[in-house]
């Protein structure tokens, strides 16, 4: 199925939540959806016949300087098509529902997004840091990140 068709299908089902279709000259087209509805949309995408996106290839957090975001790259092993969903999140206290219950792989990806960007995923079973130490301060991949000067009394070289 083409990306455009999937988008139309999704738009029909969720007219309110599907916000925008970004098609670019180079690279992959993507669909922006409402962050609050992400769980329902993902569930629909996984369970609907003809779509069946059963494989979450990648979940990435993003910092667009003026806003945060998450990007979901989906495959369907059965139909061999791909789809990209994006959400935009506010700069202050970004949070959105977790898709861990739909794709278990999101567990660690969401923890990483939390670790690196401070994006909170609601209903996640274990929302703690994953790559940085558990008591690290700040969210390193944010564009305005300033590193800690010392960690447990050890100076961090710049």
């Amino acid at each position, binding site marked *: 199925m083409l990306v455009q068709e999937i988008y139309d299908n999704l738009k029909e089902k969720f007219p309110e939540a599907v916000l925008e279709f970004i098609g670019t000259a*180079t690279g*992959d087209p993507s669909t922006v959806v409402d962050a609050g509805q992400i769980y329902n949309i993902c569930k629909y995408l996984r369970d609907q016949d003809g779509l069946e996106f*059963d494989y979450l290839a990648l979940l990435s957090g993003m910092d667009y300087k003026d806003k945060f975001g998450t990007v979901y790259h989906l495959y369907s092993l059965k139909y061999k098509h791909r789809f990209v969903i994006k959400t935009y999140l506010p700069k202050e206290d970004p949070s959105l529902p977790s898709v861990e219950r739909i*794709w*278990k792989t999101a567990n660690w990806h969401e923890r990483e997004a939390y670790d690196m960007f401070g994006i909170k995923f609601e209903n996640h079973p274990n929302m703690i*840091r994953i790559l940085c130490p558990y008591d690290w301060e700040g969210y390193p991949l944010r564009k305005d990140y300033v590193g800690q000067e010392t960690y447990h009394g050890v100076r961090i070289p710049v």
Partner: protein
Amino acid sequence: MERKFIEYDFGRVDSERMRLNVGPQHPSTHGVLRLEIELEGEIVTDVIPHIGYLHRCFEKYCEQMQYPQVIPYIDRLDYIASMNNEWPFVMGVEKMMNIQVPERVEYIRVIFAELNRIANHQIAVATFGMDAGAFTPFLYLFRDREMILNLFEHTSGARLLYNYFWVGGLAHDVPPNFKDTALNIIKTVRATNEEVMRLLMGNKIFVERTVKVGILPADVAINFACSGPVLRGSGVEWDLRKAQPYSIYDRFDFNVCVGSNEIGVIGDSWNRNIVRMNEMEQSCRIIEQAIAQMPNEGDVREKFPKKVRPPKGEIYCSAENPKGELGFYLVADGGNKPFRLKSRPTSFVNLAVLPEICKGYMVADLILILGSIDIVLGEVDR
């Protein structure tokens, strides 16, 4: 699929559960991984992986680096299969910049990627055997890997971290006796594989150790987005080289190896390992075909762009790495540095499945299951 655990009744035994830290320094965690495990006697009841001991801010660095400078860093993700690592990134940038690389470059890339796949699977099988206590096959396989590394050294100048696939071409042309060397390597690899099949894989003790251990059902594997031999060992026929043929993989005749019920159960450690053994053979076939079809003349550097500056946009480009699907989600803002480069680390995703599949087995099995997933901590922690 029904999941078979070693049945053990915890209810009646009045005993204390033991918490054991496997790692960060442990002989068989393949790096600095810490597994916090809970034991009931010798039975594992819970596993909590703690990762990040090797975290070195790969993604943050990439935002400060120009595109060609990112490649040496990518080498260091999965340092066992560096050639394969470079490919999806380079391919993604080429797609963004709309560069069509020459035929010869494509063939050389395929040959090197497949050679590196063989080298990686050799390490995977070897260390898996060592986890089970068999040390000798380990050295036989490493001896052969040395030949592959020598060829890589004579081509790219480095043995392990090649920096060889560049945007638009390759860093160096292949050495003059390249074809003979590659064919010779294939011959040796086949001979050793046959020997390892008898010495290690066919050994009754090893078979007993690995079959029905760490069974990963297909639906769980897909739900956890496993890829590579871990997914194919569970019987899912998903190989990006076939499913979404990139580069010139549609020109070659090869099979996707999947696990079977022949020895053991689909999705157990044995099947994950035998998939690797069979994939080595398939890689040999691809290399033979590629060497036969490869054009002899051509400049590998002719399509180098003056400045690597992809236009504004974003792309997710992935390739079938030896360990699974390695992808790079590249967001470019038109400058000479990536706005964001997010990697889809294969080992990171595959490791997440570990707590799911090793409950109810023994400590010795836990080590084997970890070995059969074949992780590299450089990639897990980035």
